[in-house]
């Protein structure tokens, strides 16, 4: 079983759920850049955004186990099935467009699971109209401080980078036995059946190594994503997680100390049975939020609301300034380099880009 080398510094992500619009740009940016649609990666999405409450992706992942018990013992987990992951659809374009069948053929998936996918339960939510409720939850590998996958790997194929704490799978060493997938409580490790290896979010290390923010953060049009070193006092991530305590880990009880944090969601005031507005009521049940983000969620929301109350009174709020993000680059911490500045040179004899 692998041992976790603790990193010197830890890179962390923050997603502001009050700004996340569920647009899937982060998911798609990641998909296009990394797993793509190579053989074996068709249904692979390292970054996903799901509607909460919902069953998520893999379907019902929160019930699959993994991580640690409160006393530190590893908690048995299971691998999601292909059907629980779903997706990977291929379509019959040729049959419809040049098959000569006219209206007898319509475009539909001819492979993959027809009853689940990476965003199957989009916008379904919970509650009862008009007090229905939902919000979007972006998820990627949490590059945990206590990564269960690392400890579970019998081949020492997973490691935590010393300089930034990224958790990476050495795909050369990986034997594809899937112990990491069982151990990961977030079910954020995929299995490439064709290559026989586990694959997951690589933290965009090729970008990070050149000072460029991860694609999921840099391409977020909702300006809901932040990245940076947790100990960098100038980073938005530090301010939100450490100074203001408004950004919280998902399912802290999983025991892996994840490094993806969330500013919990506010919601419109609910309506009373007679249709009048209940400005003191909660649309999203606080117990539901606590089940996701732990008891700290109440304090985080209270801080947020207190700061929001300041603004109409004309008072300043450093927290809200950070979340407003007047200058977009402030979301990127030290990773604010424009990738278009990079020029790769081609080796004359090999044709490789360096």
């Amino acid at each position, binding site marked *: 079983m692998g041992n976790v080398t603790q990193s010197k510094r830890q890179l962390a992500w923050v997603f502001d759920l009050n700004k996340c619009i569920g647009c899937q740009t982060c998911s798609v940016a990641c*998909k296009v850049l990394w797993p793509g649609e190579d053989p074996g990666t068709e249904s692979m999405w390292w970054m996903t955004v799901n509607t909460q409450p919902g069953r998520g992706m893999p379907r019902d992942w929160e019930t699959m186990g993994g991580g640690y018990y409160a006393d530190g013992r590893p908690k048995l987990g299971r691998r999601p099935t292909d059907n629980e992951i779903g997706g990977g659809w291929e379509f019959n374009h040729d049959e419809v467009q040049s098959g000569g069948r006219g209206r007898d053929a*319509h475009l539909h998936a001819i492979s993959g699971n027809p009853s689940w996918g990476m965003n199957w339960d989009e916008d379904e939510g919970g509650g009862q109209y008009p007090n229905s409720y939902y919000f979007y939850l972006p998820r990627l590998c949490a590059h945990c401080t206590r990564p269960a996958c690392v400890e579970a790997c019998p081949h020492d194929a997973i490691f935590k980078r010393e300089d930034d704490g990224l958790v990476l799978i050495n795909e050369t060493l990986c034997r594809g036995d899937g112990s990491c997938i069982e151990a990961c409580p977030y079910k954020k490790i995929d299995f490439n059946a064709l290559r026989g290896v586990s694959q997951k979010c690589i933290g965009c290390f*090729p970008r990070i190594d050149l000072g460029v923010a991860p694609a999921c953060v840099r391409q977020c*049009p909702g300006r809901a994503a932040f990245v940076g070193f947790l100990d960098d006092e100038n980073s938005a991530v530090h301010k939100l997680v450490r100074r203001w305590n408004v950004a919280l880990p998902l399912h802290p009880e999983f025991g892996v100390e994840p490094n993806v944090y969330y500013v919990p969601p506010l919601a419109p005031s609910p309506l009373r049975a007679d249709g009048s507005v209940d400005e003191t009521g909660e649309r999203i049940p606080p117990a539901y939020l606590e089940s996701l983000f732990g008891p700290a969620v109440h304090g985080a929301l209270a801080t947020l609301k207190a700061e929001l109350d300041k603004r109409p009174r004309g008072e300043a709020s450093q927290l809200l300034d950070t979340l407003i993000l007047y200058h977009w680059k402030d979301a990127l911490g030290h990773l604010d380099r424009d990738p278009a500045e990079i020029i790769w040179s081609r080796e004359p004899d090999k044709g490789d*880009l360096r």
Partner: protein
Amino acid sequence: MSRPQDAARDTSSNLTSDAWADTYRDKWKWDKVTWGTHCVDCYPANCPYRVFVRDGRVVREEQAATFTTVEPGVPDMNPTGCQKGAAWSRMLNGKDRVKYPLRRAGERGEGRWKRVSWDEATTEIADAMLDAMEESGPRSILRPGTTEGGIQTIALANNIFLRLGATVSDVLAEVSDIAPGLFITFGRYGSCSSHDDWFHSELTLIWANNPTQSNISTVHYLTEARYNGGETITIAPDYSPSAIHSNQFVPVRIGSDAALALSMCRVLIDENLVDEAFVREQTDLGLLVRTDTSRFLRQCDVSEGGSDEIFHLFDTRTGRITEAPRTLDLAGLEPALEGTYRATLKDGSAVEVVPAFVRLRRRLEAYAPEDASVICGVHPEHIRQLARKVARKRTRIITGWTTGKSYHGDLMERSMCLVIALTGNWGKKGCGIRGIGAGMFDGPYLQSMKPQAGQQVTEFMFLAEEERIREALAKDPTLTREILMAQSSSEGGLTLGASSPFFFWYNQCGYREVFNNPSHNDPLMKRPFDDYVKEALEKGWWKGQEHPTVEHPHRVFFNIGGNPLRMQRGGQRMLLEHLWPTLHMIVTLDFRLSTTALYSDFVLPVAQHHEKTNFDYSVHDMMNLVLADKAVEPQGESLSEYQVTLLIARKLSQRAVARGMLEVKKDDGQIVRLDTFYEDLTLNGALAEDDAILDEAVRDSAVMGTLPPGTTLASLRETGWVRFTGLGAAVTSLAEASDVRPDETFAPFRWQTEKKEPFPTLTRRAQFYIDHEWFLEAGEELPMHKEAPALGGNHPLVVTSGHPRAGVNGMHSTDRTMMATGRGKPVAHINDGDAAARGIENGQDIRIFNDDAAMVIQARVTPTARPGQVVLYSGFEPYLFPEWKDFANLETGMVKWLHLAGGYGHLRYRPLLWQPVPIDRGVHVEVEKAC
């Protein structure tokens, strides 16, 4: 610029220097970067991207995110983009990509193709065009206005048709993106702020709109305005993705928005919350209305030979009835809003007159919150709270194009406008009501009018036009440039397309029967639909627009940047049954095989985004011209739209000479030479290349003052984008009526509030009282709530629609990556209670049907849909559905008769502005489990 070696490389674990890690590093490398954007009708679009190319192929694109701060204290616009943009490079190699000219080898729609050469294709097409022109002139060639494909399609590909005198139909009518209520009120609907101005709002009402899905790139300004202390309230039937980030959700019954707005107005008046000075200055509510005729008291009523466009007010300072100024400058007058007065007519008799505000107050008596609540389902106290908030706060209404696509959408919009009028909420930052802003990039539209290339001729034309305007303004200083341009656009000036498609639908597409069906019309209508058509024609209100006729239908149909068989309200069934059999040649230019392409005789392959130089149409939402550069060569034999039309033009000349048909006569009597047609079109070859004509367009815009001096295609290849510096000459742009300032967000209508310039309406004010005889007959002289006819028949559920999250107008609905972010197929959202009552479970196929048609789609069962509502986002390719039966077939495609009104101030045909457009919202259906 720096090399990767300069940056710190992997100093951590040596494990990341393994081969597996290099595989990933290698994926993120390129050998060329260009600027790009996606020229689609994703209003507002214009997101600057970097396009990464490797070995001659686009590997991916990423938002450039190079915007600088415009106004200090307002968040910058970075990184505008979305998931469609992030995956566009995938669509270049999509499975539905067309790479070679295709000729139909089976029946239309059958899906059998023969690859042909460009020469074969253009020869047959040119001959069909000549045949059609021989039969009934160039008008018989129809190029319907479309929105996809940016300047290449909207401007460059139109040049051939405009020069030939073919029919180019009004693009906004074709897509029903017209805001009739805003137009009735303001004489324009260019009330579009730049989206960064959203940050300034203290209260944002998201009303009949879902910007979280339709404005992914900029909706952050709403969440940020909320953090800035603002309040956001979503008014919608469903708990929409935009509602979730709001402070309040106001669940309104479908189609009852006018009742809610009018009730808010009633509260404003009852509680003395009206901004009276604003109302007096900016609106017609201080103008006097005769109680005997319900018409305004006009100059011609009181003096012989007087004008019928000069109105009166009662000046409380002098206690006299006075002529109202023709601008908003009241010059010390204080129009009474209350009271009853007596006016002496020219025959010496006296009539009773009241300010229009008095009429309005009486109209609002029906909308006490308790009464309106019964109509709209919003709690009376909630209505009162909303009204008080609007009165207290700098308020913006963000509405979209749902109201304009609703039967009584004009009444909804007029009612919303009234809310902001009574509270003084336009003409300053952070407020107003959103409309369409388009224009500024004028250069491309100039090219079909220029006698020769170069900026000297542009300057000459520009100065001549300026001189004409100066003279006209000197003659009548109460006029504005916008009013002058609007008048000349009615006569066919600088416009995107000059022909209303109403009579095309009516005469050639089978809609006459649809429009005349009494159950499709307002039950309160006094006469049959055709009575109004007849009257409108007799009075000459649609002079020049009455084509095609039944006797002379269109024969050749060019589908460029569109997909009419998907988009047509009333559905493909109308077009395939009525239009298709009358067409001798159907040509589609596209990069993918749409449903319309499958029903075409020829499909001509066009270069995709990143394979040609292009710009999107420019909008005030973004205020930037963004370059879509050619990053790679087009695949297969595809060509840009402009180059395809030039091939056709060249062949047209050749075939015309061969057939001895050397010229053709346009409708206006002008002769078009066909033997030199190509040379004339390209100004003797000077503008035959994409880059040449686009550079010309950019340089011309700089001459005309909408771009900084010295802007060229080459300078844009350096900077990627440039912010506009002026509104330009287009009516839709001048309608914004504000200076473009380099260091401020753009807020429209400041020329009204700051310079007191008039609105381009009959009364020169924001006009809430419309005394057109038809409006009086309909009882719609003032805003009111009316129940819409039950389009689709008497069925219990009502469909609402809107922009899907993962697609732009259908083109992404067959893209694998975008389909993967949903269920891989279209879905309809239905309320959980409605589903349970019908035994429908989440994920099951359901049959949606009404009197017009039926379709099968998967159900998404959710408590976010309102009971009685079906949410069905638009923009799905019909061939995604069994038997290709999509929702458009259930839509009826009705128009509201009043929009044929003319002969009244601003209510006359104006391209892009005033005309009847089909309705697709509020369709009645029933739903059952599919077999």
